[in-house]
């Protein structure tokens, strides 16, 4: 299968301090990749490198090459890269506007002005994120008044309005309860047909439930990467095994 994202010898340094060390991996389209690892293992930095947000940090330096659909991302326009590779943050941060305005923010920027077209986007993406039924009567309500889980789904829906090809999620459920997390998981499973999903998670059982592929990072190194089933049931490396059992047991 053709990889949508390809990392070749990617290292990231903050000053002298290496955060990612020589990472090589290909991310396949239409699947959910779960990225796991202890705190400080470089998971968030990986996501930021993938969508180019890392370049906004002057102290971060990246070596190696990341290709999106075969094209080196550093030759691409930054804004285009960030549009094509969406990122949902750990803490949901809706803009202090109405739900509708949150959802039309990116489309408007990309020049869509027609009301019917905007309304269709809002409806479609909210449905994809499984939020439409809950908010359809109150699209003009402030997005800040939504519950935590709803906010996060709104942020996912908002990320989708930019029409990305890859959707990165940085521990999207860390601030949510079990029920809200379950709704998000369901949402992600529904989205993987159309989008490639990379999710950083601390929750191993969550990764087991939704991931097709899994990667385990430790201290900036990619320790193990492969089919989720294999990695969870029969990890090759001792490090992976102890992480999985240590957290589970």
């Amino acid at each position, binding site marked *: 299968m053709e990889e949508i994202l390809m990392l070749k010898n990617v290292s990231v340094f903050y000053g002298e301090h290496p955060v990612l060390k020589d990472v090589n991996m290909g991310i396949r389209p239409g699947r959910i990749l779960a990225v796991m690892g202890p705190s400080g293992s470089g998971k968030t930095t990986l996501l930021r490198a993938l969508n180019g947000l890392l370049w906004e940090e002057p102290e971060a330096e990246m070596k190696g090459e990341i290709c999106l659909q075969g094209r080196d991302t550093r030759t691409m326009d930054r804004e285009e890269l960030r549009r094509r590779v*969406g990122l949902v943050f750990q803490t949901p941060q809706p803009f202090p506007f109405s739900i509708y305005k949150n959802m039309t923010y990116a489309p408007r920027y990309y020049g869509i002005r027609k009301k019917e077209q905007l309304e269709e986007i809002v409806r479609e993406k909210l449905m994809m994120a499984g939020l439409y039924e809950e908010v359809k009567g109150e699209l003009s309500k402030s997005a800040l008044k939504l519950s935590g889980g709803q906010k996060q789904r709104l942020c996912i829906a908002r990320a989708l309005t930019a029409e990305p090809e890859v959707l990165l999620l940085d521990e999207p459920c860390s601030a949510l309860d079990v029920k809200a997390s379950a709704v998000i998981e369901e949402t992600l499973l529904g989205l993987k047909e159309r989008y490639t999903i990379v999710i950083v998670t601390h929750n191993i059982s969550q990764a087991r439930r939704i991931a097709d592929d899994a990667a385990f990072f430790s201290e900036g190194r990619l320790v193990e990467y492969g089919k989720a089933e294999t990695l969870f049931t029969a990890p090759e490396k001792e490090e992976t095994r102890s992480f999985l059992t240590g957290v589970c047991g």
Partner: protein
Amino acid sequence: MRKKLDKIFAFFICGMTVFSILVLGFVIYFIVREALPLFSEVSVLDFLFGSRWMPVDYTGTVSFGIFNFIAATIAVSFTALALALGAGLGAAVFLAFVATERLRSFLYPFVDLLAGIPSVIYGFVGLQVLVKLFLKAGVPTGSCVLAAGILLAVMLLPFLVSSCCETMLKEKEKYELVACALGVSRWYAAATVILPASGRNILLSMILAIGRAMGETMAVMMVMGNANLFPRLLGKSESIASVIALEMGTAVYGSTHYHALYAAGMVLMLLLFLINGLIGLIRSRMEGETL
């Protein structure tokens, strides 16, 4: 022991709060008590809307009308606020969005330094520089409302710049990356998310700034010419604070003049409450509805 300490602390906090409220109440009570006797001699309407101020009977009848002073106070304050807001927002946007962390920490002390200069020094500079410039430009004597407005604007700047910049930095931290992750440019994010989100706090800074502007006496007095005239940008005028400062020393204790000055102070206070209330109303409106 722990509980006892908590109790003492709570008591102390309550006491301090009550004390500050009492101080405010006392100030209001004192001003109102000294102002009220005036209205047994001069009607409220004549006082507020009369434009003849003749506190001592050199030339016939005395008269107490402070309309021009009220108008001048409002005119100077809003001129200053408008000028300061333009420059201040620009400077804050520069500091928050263009300047690097290092440049910001280098420039900040200069802004703070402006706040430390006594107002009489500002007045002096205004007299030496601004008034002379206006004189050259053809304004008779050079003293005018615009000069006071400009001077006052400079005095308001440090507070406006630093408070607006703080707000913007806070909102920027919250929303910039989020917006950028959607693929929009940084400036678009700044203009469409971060600035609107800062709006409420900018309004709050405006309330505090206008309070300072309306009460400012020295600098305004030194460059505005102090003539009882309806304020025009390039004409002389006199603010309420200036009248009080200039005449309180010569007013006989207990005379109508004395009470009239207190009444003018009361009007200034009410004016401030009114404006604060109005801006506060706009602010809570903004909170109620989403942008």
